[in-house]
């Protein structure tokens, strides 16, 4: 970290925690790269510390077909080639949304950046970063996602539901990723399979 505050910024805090969300989104879009279409202006950021080695977490994440194990809303991810995957994701109202994501940048063991290709139901781009935590605490994992909430006819109602949903989902998914990596399982309060299937915790 530099020893002075970035002149364009008020402090050193991550842009995802800015009170000025749109300005932050603009700033991040510059660094992240944006989806090929759509006007991605909604920003989500979440960081967790996971007590496992950086290389192990990176490798698990880089095999994108692993992700539905802890991403509750993701129905399936198909691998198209080493850099492209097709995502099918549950959306409010029994719908699904789909897109093809392409890895736009990556560095082994450090970060993966992606963006959706043209024709995405929900244009999005993002970056997952892995850094060593201090004091032997494992790895700091940060997800930053920029997306364009679906608009249009039924627009506002869905948008209202949808706008919050990816933020909630992202933080819960990261918790499940942490649980899976640290404990080997995803915690549930359900008493048996029937209650688990009904989503009763």
């Amino acid at each position, binding site marked *: 970290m530099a020893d002075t505050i970035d002149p364009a910024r008020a402090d050193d805090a991550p842009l995802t925690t800015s009170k000025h969300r749109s300005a932050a989104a603009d700033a991040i879009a510059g660094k992240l790269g944006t989806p090929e279409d759509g006007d991605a202006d909604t920003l989500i950021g979440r960081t967790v*510390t996971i*007590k496992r080695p950086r290389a192990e977490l990176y490798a698990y994440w880089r095999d994108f077909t692993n992700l539905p194990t802890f991403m509750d809303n993701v129905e399936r991810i198909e691998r198209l080639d080493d850099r492209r995957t097709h995502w099918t994701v549950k959306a409010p109202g029994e719908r699904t949304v789909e897109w093809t994501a392409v890895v736009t940048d990556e560095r082994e063991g450090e970060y993966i950046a992606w963006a959706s290709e043209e024709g995405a139901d929900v244009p999005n781009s993002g970056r997952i970063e892995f850094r060593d935590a201090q004091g032997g*605490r*494992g790895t700091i994992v940060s997800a930053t996602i920029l997306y364009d909430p679906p608009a249009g006819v039924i627009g506002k109602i869905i948008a209202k539901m949808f706008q919050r949903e990816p933020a*909630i989902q992202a933080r*819960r*998914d990261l*918790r*499940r990723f*942490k*649980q899976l990596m*640290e*404990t*080997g*399982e*995803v*915690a*549930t*309060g*359900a*008493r*048996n*399979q*029937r*209650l*688990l299937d009904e989503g*009763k*915790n």
Partner: protein
Amino acid sequence: MRALAWHGKHDVRVDTVDDPEILNPRDAIIKITSTAICGSDLHLYDGYIPTMQSGDILGHEFMGEVVEIGSKSTLKKGQRVVVPFTISCGSCYHCGKHQYSACDNGLPADNQDIAMSLYGQPMSGLFGYSHMTGGYSGGQAEYVRVPFSDVGPIVVPDGVPDEKVLFLSDILPTGWMAAENAQIEPGDTVAVWGCGPVGLFAVQSAFLMGAERVIAIDHFPRRLELAKKFGAETINFEETSTYEALMEMTGGIGPDACIDSVGLEAHGFFIDNVIDQIKASTFLGTDRPHSIRQAILACRKGGRVSMPAVYGGFVDKFPLGAFMQKGLTLKTGQTHVQHYMPGLLNAIMEEKIDTTFLISHTLPLENAPDGYRMFHDKQNEVTKVVLKPGLERVEIDV
């Protein structure tokens, strides 16, 4: 199976429900042989704890026999185990520091949101204690699913009666940690508010840790008698002004360490209690913190306050000025049960600690609603109710 389910304020029933199953590799299924009603279960019974749902199975003090294990459990079928009330993964940073009740992973991801907004962080899961603590079915039942069974339950030797080890699940470690948090030094006078099970175990623990004097405060004569048996001096707050008595009994110094084992449902006709009770019943506040206020005022300058008592929300009129001006230290937290279990099991086996004196009533699980009513209404006579699954319901006069 049969299980004690919560249906609303002062409405608990023994229902027939689906059996538990192994869901995760580290799970085990325990067939309950003994389970107790905890003082903190009365907070649920009285409707003080939010996020309860009708049908939730209660109970977080239990032990029994291992009958099923997941592929990663280290338990063996047939072993007798006592299960800690905290559900902790044993793998995260906090578990690594033995801060088990601060476990990062005990709560299901979706249930962490409430704790995040109330407390800023998720805490460990708890058995049978609302959905903000994970929605886990409790042990006042014939069977229970125990997650992380490779790090939680402690195996007890055959031949030791349940009654001698059951309280390793919660109240004995809680009383012990309360005394440890009071950082007792030789020559100390320790004051203990509340002579329920945790307070009584804190009295015993304080003496074992070298306290010279322990002063126990309650208003139930039988509970004060029990404290006296362990060597405590007593104050009955209905007969005596607690602050004045503590000052006079300590030569005007105040107790070196104060332990609040009363918590959010303090009894007694004190003006702050009555106002807090009105606020609680109108949802303007939840906790009635009379005892912690008094502990802070009475504590000697530079002294230590330990708070094992359960608080859930916000308090009014916390004497922050007295706390700051006198330079007090406050230590608290849900109990790190797994950390204390092995040492306390040894102390029980070596007969340094006896916990069986506490049990005033043993009932069939089928009579659990009677047990709740008795424990709630007759706190003088009813010091601890132990429930036994598999027995016929009996008619008792409550």
